[in-house]
């Protein structure tokens, strides 16, 4: 899937929720600057990080994402003045709770990428892809939701869920 050319390397699926005014535009700038980056990220545009409900992230994982990026305007730069401040509180708590229930925080990237930071967006994408690749596929969650994991196996039993019986 990625352009890296390592045929059998795991290619993580990453969903990115980015705000329209800063990060989306920053990603546009990365494009106009022809900054090459990993192709694993799928962008969903929102008006503001303030719009992002933690359920978006939960749902993304539920639908097979191995990692999630949330990115918006730097503090004081929010197009809507304060949406990012609210998002910052919300995701600070979500991240701690998610980590507490065993969702590796490494699967989630939160970043401020401004409209002028095309290069930072590339780095955020590449670093997230590399980090999630190292963590491997989020098979635990896939077992949970009955999606087949990387090997095509499905685990609808509690034993399967807990990984106690070998698939």
């Amino acid at each position, binding site marked *: 899937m990625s352009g890296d050319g390592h045929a059998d390397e795991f290619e993580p699926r990453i969903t990115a929720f980015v705000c329209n005014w800063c990060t989306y535009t920053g990603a546009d700038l990365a494009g106009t600057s022809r900054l090459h980056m990993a192709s694993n990220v799928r962008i969903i545009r929102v008006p503001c990080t303030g719009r992002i409900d933690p*359920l978006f992230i939960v749902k993304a994982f*539920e639908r097979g994402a191995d990692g999630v990026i949330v990115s918006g305007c730097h503090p004081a730069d929010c197009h809507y003045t304060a949406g990012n401040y609210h998002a910052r*509180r919300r995701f600070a708590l979500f991240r701690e*709770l998610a*980590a507490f229930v*065993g969702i590796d925080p490494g699967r989630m990237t939160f970043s401020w990428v401004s409209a002028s930071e095309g290069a930072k967006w590339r780095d955020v994408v590449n670093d997230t892809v590399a980090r999630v690749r190292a963590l491997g596929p989020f098979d635990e969650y896939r077992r949970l939701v009955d999606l087949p994991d990387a090997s095509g196996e499905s685990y609808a039993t509690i034993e399967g869920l*807990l990984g106690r019986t070998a698939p």
Partner: protein
Amino acid sequence: MTEPHDLTTEAPEATTGAPGAAREAAPDRYPETGAPDETGDLHGVARHVLAKGEADVVIGWEEGRRGVRPAFVTTPDDVERLVFDTRCVHNLATYLNPRRRQVAALGRPAVVIKGCDAKAVAGLLREAQLSRDQVVLIGVRCGGVLEVAELDEPADLTPETVSPRCYRCDNREPHLVDYLVGDPQAEPPRPPKTVDERVAELEDAPVAERWHFWVEEFSRCVRCYACREVCPLCICERCVADKSVPQWIDAASHPRGNLSWNLTRALHLAGRCVECGECERACPSGLPLMLLNRKLAQAVRQRFDYVAGDDPEVPAPVGDYRLDDAEEFIR
């Protein structure tokens, strides 16, 4: 977890509300001062508010078949039914939640509240679910309650029997009251393992073990929503879990929806939860929901300098922000 936030914590000493918003002396209609003579004890106060027409119903506790149960006393002659002891675990503030219309039908309520229950009342006031003049609040001084309260007789609190959530309670004497009854209470005993210690234990475990622990716990969730129904601060008429277009949370009692539901429930209560423990008590499957609540309460305190208190004027931390909120997790 991420440095530099120290997550191994214990409840702070007697701080409620945001620090700095130090509570002034007693509230306006504070108890003993100025209260009529017959209001020295719970029965006296209950009789007084019913007889004087301050309230149509006193919601308190009475002896039940196994332990105590909520009581709705509507005549002064009946107030002797009311009891208060270590078995009174129920958070009666939940009856002030506008979702409980059947209780509203009884008329203007007076509610007997412990310190944690008073915080829930503050939450309802804060979120405009209740107005202060609609309700008479009879505060009871509380030195902690039992973890297992289904007993025929009140029992003394020992480290083994006390509910761990009561440890280092910062509101043994509620402030948000019209009347305050009972004697000053000592601090509850320290349980063998505090909630903070249980949280810390889990946090010390590798991420995969935490996942296994919670998946196993959540797999027992039958999605009866008792946790939601008993919660005084679950105020939504239509819960997000019941919304079907789009259906963010799968309705079936299946692990995928169970995880979404339990994460969402905890998050919706972040910064609002008063840690009364009712969700965990009501859960028929024995899910350790207080661990989630406690974890978020810790995070809220460390990050936003906020501890749920019974001052309704102190704004809740979610829906608020500070320019210098910690953002060590943001790149």
